[in-house]
């Protein structure tokens, strides 16, 4: 999903590039240099809007100058979302799933190259147990002191579900299931999804001797499921939400599929509603008033790509790759984004104990809490650095308010000479975004920062780097690109040097 998102946004947002998109975006005009510009009103060029009254009177298309004393406002709202505990995860390449076990008061993380168990302590998070299982994808709680972990397998490695006692991760049994994905345990039955569209039912009355009772086929690309009463709700990454009749628990059958516009990667169900993680679309909420025919009642996008969802007390938590977002779902038909926190590594999975919400990133774990009685803004620049590669004189930062109350931009400043900073609005409603236009009339190499001061309670001062090119890069910038020939999955060979004369975007992804 994240690769797809890069492709779509990387190209789809190229709205101002010559010959990438013929027309300028709405509200923009093409300048003499063939670049799209937002029309600046000369009469307003020297206007300094320092309070909301000025902003309210500003016409669309005005570019405002902000105060340049980049200091945090003296009084800030209270942050409704807070991180209470944090720990780095050693030696992980990839975290993929997390589950909470009330009996051991542990969260369990599946990923590459291990399965780990984490205890929430008064002061932090402690890794208490680790099983170097290789590549594991899903983990689910089977009951007191037992978990099941799945791995997909391939030609050289068997797909399987391992049933483990959690204290030392001793192996109790193995079920060989190719392409094993999400699992759920209800009573003595373990339900195992497969990437090939099956749901297996196993009798675990004797945990050491799992007995296959049934195999249902016919789903497209199921990732995970929830079972509530006589129904199972499957997050299918092709079809959306698939409903299974479980009234005969040994023989599930498909009774409904949502008419969605896209797939789901995770689902949680509570109080008559299903909450599906819908990737770049955000989170889709379904009413289960008729359990066999879920009806979409809301779609809310907390940004990033929604991968994993968990429910706390009236709060839906979303791991959306860039971080964790909290959404007030006390009224599921009217979800309100409360705020979000960026993570250092890709945020992949959330799990809830009801009390604590546990976030797993590629290299970190953290616990969060949220208070639905508090409203506050959340300032989100859409990039962390401003690059002015050769021939570039202007960049636009979108400053999104991902919070639940109005965002006031208090100041904008830079230490870079010959830089003009303007903004289209100093007041940003929740869910809206302001545009910050940065124009550079200097020459040579750039090095400095753009300072944004707002009433965001946890990050009132945010600094974006300003650079000529990517400073964080290897020695290769500006050097001839190393040539290669690689086989494509379509059977053709692809040679970099044959592409000379046109720009090539390479996206290198990994799952070691």
């Amino acid at each position, binding site marked *: *999903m*994240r*690769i*797809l998102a*890069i*492709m779509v*946004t*990387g190209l789809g*947002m*190229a709205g*101002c*590039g*010559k*010959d990438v998109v013929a027309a300028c975006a709405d509200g923009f005009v093409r300048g003499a240099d063939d*670049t799209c510009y937002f029309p600046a009103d000369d009469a307003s060029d020297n206007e300094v809007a320092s309070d909301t009254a000025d902003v309210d009177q500003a016409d669309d298309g005005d570019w405002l100058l902000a105060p340049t004393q980049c200091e945090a406002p003296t009084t800030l709202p209270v942050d409704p979302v807070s991180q209470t505990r944090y720990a780095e995860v050693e030696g992980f390449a990839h975290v993929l799933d997390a589950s909470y076990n009330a009996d051991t008061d542990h969260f369990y993380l599946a990923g590459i190259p291990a399965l780990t168990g984490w205890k929430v302590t008064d002061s932090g998070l402690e890794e208490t147990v680790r099983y170097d299982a290789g590549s594991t994808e899903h983990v689910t709680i089977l009951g007191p002191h037992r978990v099941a972990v799945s791995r*997909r397998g*391939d*030609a050289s490695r068997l797909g399987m579900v391992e049933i483990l006692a959690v204290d030392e991760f001793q192996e109790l049994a193995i079920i060989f299931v190719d392409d094993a994905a999400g699992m759920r345990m209800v009573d003595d039955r373990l339900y195992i999804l497969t990437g090939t569209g099956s749901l297996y039912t196993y009798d675990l009355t004797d945990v050491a001797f799992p007995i296959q009772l049934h195999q249902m086929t016919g789903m497209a690309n199921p990732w995970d499921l929830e079972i509530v009463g006589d129904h199972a709700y499957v997050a299918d*990454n092709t079809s959306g939400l698939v409903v299974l009749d479980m009234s005969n628990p040994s023989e599930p059958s498909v009774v409904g599929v949502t008419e969605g516009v896209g797939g789901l990667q995770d689902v949680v169900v509570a109080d008559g509603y299903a909450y599906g993680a819908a990737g770049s679309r955000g989170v889709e909420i379904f009413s289960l008033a008729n359990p066999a025919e879920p009806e979409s009642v809301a779609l809310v996008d907390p940004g990033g790509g929604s991968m994993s969802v968990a429910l706390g007390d009236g709060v839906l938590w979303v791991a959306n790759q860039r971080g964790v977002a909290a959404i007030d779902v006390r009224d599921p038909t009217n979800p309100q984004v409360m705020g979000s926190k960026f993570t250092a590594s890709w945020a992949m999975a959330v799990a809830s104990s009801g009390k604590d919400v546990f976030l797993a990133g590629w290299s970190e774990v953290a616990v969060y809490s949220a208070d639905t009685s508090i409203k506050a803004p959340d300032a989100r620049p*859409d*990039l*962390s*650095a401003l*690059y002015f*590669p050769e*021939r*570039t004189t202007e*960049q636009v930062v979108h400053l999104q308010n991902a919070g639940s109350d109005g965002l006031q931009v208090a100041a904008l400043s830079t230490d870079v000479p010959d830089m003009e900073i303007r903004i289209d609005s100093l007041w940003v409603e929740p869910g809206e975004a302001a545009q910050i236009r940065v124009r550079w009339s200097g020459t040579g190499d750039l090095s400095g920062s753009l300072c944004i001061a707002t009433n965001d309670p946890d990050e009132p001062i945010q600094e974006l780097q300003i650079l000529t*090119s*990517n400073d*964080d*890069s*290897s020695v*290769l*910038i*500006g*050097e*001839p*690109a*190393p040539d290669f020939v*690689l*086989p*494509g*999955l379509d059977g*053709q060979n*692809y040679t970099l040097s044959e*592409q*000379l*004369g*046109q*720009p*090539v*975007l*390479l*996206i*290198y*992804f*990994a*799952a*070691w």
Partner: protein
Amino acid sequence: MVLWGIGPEDSYANLAEFQTQMGLTFPVLFDDGGSVHDLYNPGAVPTESKYPQDWIIGTDGRVKYVNTLYDPVEIRAVLDAELAADGR
């Protein structure tokens, strides 16, 4: 312009599955053993590198951009400059 995905997944089958799962429609190339990773990350240990890595090779065949953070605005800026320069 050209867009390629490159994956060093530990098997061809895994990468093919990844492509299908993600619905990728651009060419996905299999970097068996991570040799291209090593070319573009001299001296780095593959398992310790950050992913995904976005690279832009300019019209002149030189490396213009690399980042391990998803940042479409930067990518757009670099590609725009390349496309504008070359008129493609």
